């Protein structure tokens, strides 16, 4: 066993070195081979590391960066899977890189983003100290089966770590109910009634049906999607009290938000250094996680005001009159990005880039559940509307049926030409790419105007 571990570590480190010499990321592949040699490698490497693992449909990366910022500021020795390689092979690679040849980790802590589908294997081996589930929405169904299946996976994964503290979204019935029948300690985060303007129930909603009895939920208020004050008139299942609760959104701008958060009974004014409503949720999740890891509330509050944008998530680039990249991958996230755009007062150009590779989800039907109709209200302020990506034609078709003139939509698949055009635009450009489209466009932007490689 011991020999196998050492051999697996050597192979993994060597493959990573070769990848980097060839200017590749080498984020997942080395771990994949290491796990073939020693399938339980992660459990050996994670033994002496206190880990917080973050999973859920939306907000994994941003929440991870927020938590990471707290570790950084507190001067803790930690590592994270920043590259976004969040399946068991990529996570294993990160653990190996931070370990000695004998498998002893150089860090005391780890902040790990984990894909929902990978949670069963990862949690069981990693035995995290804290598990954060941000929310559950429909997402990449071709990969996961369906949402019920995804939820079952996470539930099973949690079942293998009874000692972990769970940080769960109180407002998401599919998430908060993960604590049912579990012995784990739970901290809930959420947004209380009156903090945000009440929304109408979305036409397409994922958490409508009571997870316990199958009856339809009623809602005292809705923040967005199915997140809000749900209760079941049949069996009484309802939103749990949040331990970390956003009680007021004092101010929102295109730079960030000022909010009031009740943190386990203490009221704090918190600045979130990223705009948009969904990042307020990410902030609440990060606060719960930071405190669950044993740091104090000040560390959490300071981290939120100081951290920088995640990779492709509201990331800004100094190109032309300025560009901002906002990753989109499912209807709820995409609707929230468009809601953010509706608050932009100046004229802007918009690029929507739709790919259907493995990292994006091969099924692009989600664009028909997304309310691109709300963009038509902004059409007076949109200077150019550009579609790009492998499925640009399908995106253009969606926009046609949303109410745009198909002849006014520009198709540009070539990233070089796209970036060349962005350089000459005299107004800000917002880019809404799916995951692999983000990588493609970002790479070209970085080549032209600087920025870090994706694994940095």
């Amino acid at each position, binding site marked *: 066993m011991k020999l196998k571990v050492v051999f697996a570590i050597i192979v993994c480190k060597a493959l990573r070195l070769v990848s980097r010499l060839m200017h590749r990321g080498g984020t997942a592949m080395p771990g994949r081979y290491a796990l073939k040699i020693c399938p339980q490698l992660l459990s050996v490497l994670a033994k002496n590391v206190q880990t917080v693992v973050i999973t859920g449909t939306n907000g994994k990366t941003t929440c991870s960066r927020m938590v990471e910022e707290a570790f950084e500021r507190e001067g803790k020795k930690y590592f994270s899977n920043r590259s976004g390689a969040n399946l068991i092979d990529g996570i294993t690679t990160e653990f190996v890189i931070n370990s000695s040849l004998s498998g002893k980790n150089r860090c005391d802590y780890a902040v790990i983003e984990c894909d929902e589908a990978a949670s069963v294997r990862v949690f069981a081996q990693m035995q995290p100290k804290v598990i954060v589930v941000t929310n559950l929405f429909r997402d990449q169904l071709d990969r996961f089966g369906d949402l019920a*299946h995804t939820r079952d996976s996470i539930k099973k994964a949690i079942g293998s770590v009874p000692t972990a503290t769970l940080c769960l979204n109180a407002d998401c019935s599919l998430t908060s109910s993960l604590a049912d029948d579990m012995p784990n300690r739970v901290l809930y985060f959420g947004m209380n009634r009156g903090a945000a303007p009440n929304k109408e129930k979305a036409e397409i909603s994922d958490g409508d049906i009571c997870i316990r009895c199958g009856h339809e939920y009623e809602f005292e208020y809705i923040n967005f999607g199915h997140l809000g004050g749900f209760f079941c008139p049949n069996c009484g299942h309802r939103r749990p009290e949040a331990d970390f609760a956003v009680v007021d959104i004092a101010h929102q701008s295109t730079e960030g938000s000022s909010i009031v958060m009740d943190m386990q009974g203490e009221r704090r004014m918190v600045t979130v250094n990223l705009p948009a409503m969904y990042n307020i949720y990410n902030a609440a999740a990060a606060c719960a996680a930071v405190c669950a890891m044993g740091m104090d509330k000040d560390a959490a509050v300071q981290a939120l005001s100081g951290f920088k944008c995640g990779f492709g998530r509201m990331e800004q680039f100094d190109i032309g009159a300025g560009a901002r990249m906002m990753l989109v991958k499912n209807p709820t996230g995409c609707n929230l990005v468009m809601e953010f755009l509706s608050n932009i007062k100046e004229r802007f150009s918009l690029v929507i880039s739709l790919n259907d590779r493995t990292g994006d989800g091969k099924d692009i*039907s989600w664009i028909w559940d997304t309310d691109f109709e709300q963009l038509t209200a902004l059409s007076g302020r949109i200077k150019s509307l550009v579609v790009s990506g492998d499925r640009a*034609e399908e995106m253009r*078709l969606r926009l046609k049926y949303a109410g745009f003139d198909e002849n006014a939509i520009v198709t540009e698949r070539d990233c070089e030409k796209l970036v060349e055009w962005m350089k000459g635009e005299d107004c800000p450009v917002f880019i809404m790419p799916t995951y692999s489209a983000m990588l493609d466009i970002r790479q070209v932007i970085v080549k032209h105007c600087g920025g870090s490689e994706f694994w940095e």
Partner: protein
Amino acid sequence: MELKICHLYGDVLNLYGDRGNIITMKKRLEWRGIDCAVEKINPGQTASLAGCDLIFIGGGMEFDTRLIADDLRAGRAAELKAAVEDGVSLLAICSGYQLLGRYCQDGKGVKTPMAGVLDMYTVCGKERMTGNYKFVLGEKSGGYEVVGFENHQGKSYLSEGVEPLGKVLCGHGNNGEDGGEGARYKNLFGTYSYGPILPKNAKLCDHILLTALERKYGLKELEALNDRAENEAFAAINARLG
């Protein structure tokens, strides 16, 4: 002219992009000056299907189907059957299509009785059938090629008397064995092409709309539209499927 569309079980069976079919039907009617009213009927609601010209049933998640089975038993099955026999147009997709059969059998071998509108049954297969796929419609349904995305574990088998909607050109279709895709009976169109089948298959959309308009108004033909964006979206994925 006006078509009344019923989106049956719309709050439960709406898995991924089914709304695209409603949007497409509505727009393509409106662009021709034909009014369109869409009404949702959910499980447990007693609203009648009488007076509706076209019924749409989408796909759903596994944990929602028990609600549907109960509702079918409570009388909706008989009503659906009568409507189809009467020539009402019906488009049913994925689990909406499965529920029109006699029964569905899950992975543990448990059979749940379904609507029995179609002489067909569905059993849970071992592997999920997922991906872009292509089929050619039967002559009766226009004979066009259709591209879609399938994602199902259920394998459906039609009885002798029921025609498939089309023949699989690449992908799996009903069961991955007999080459059949979907079902066509009177003005019923069943398919495994889940989610938004109609937007980039505009000809199929018009064909279905016309069955309803012919029944109601005796219309034989639809005014042509500029379908450049539709045809290019079709061509892009069709080229990839080869």
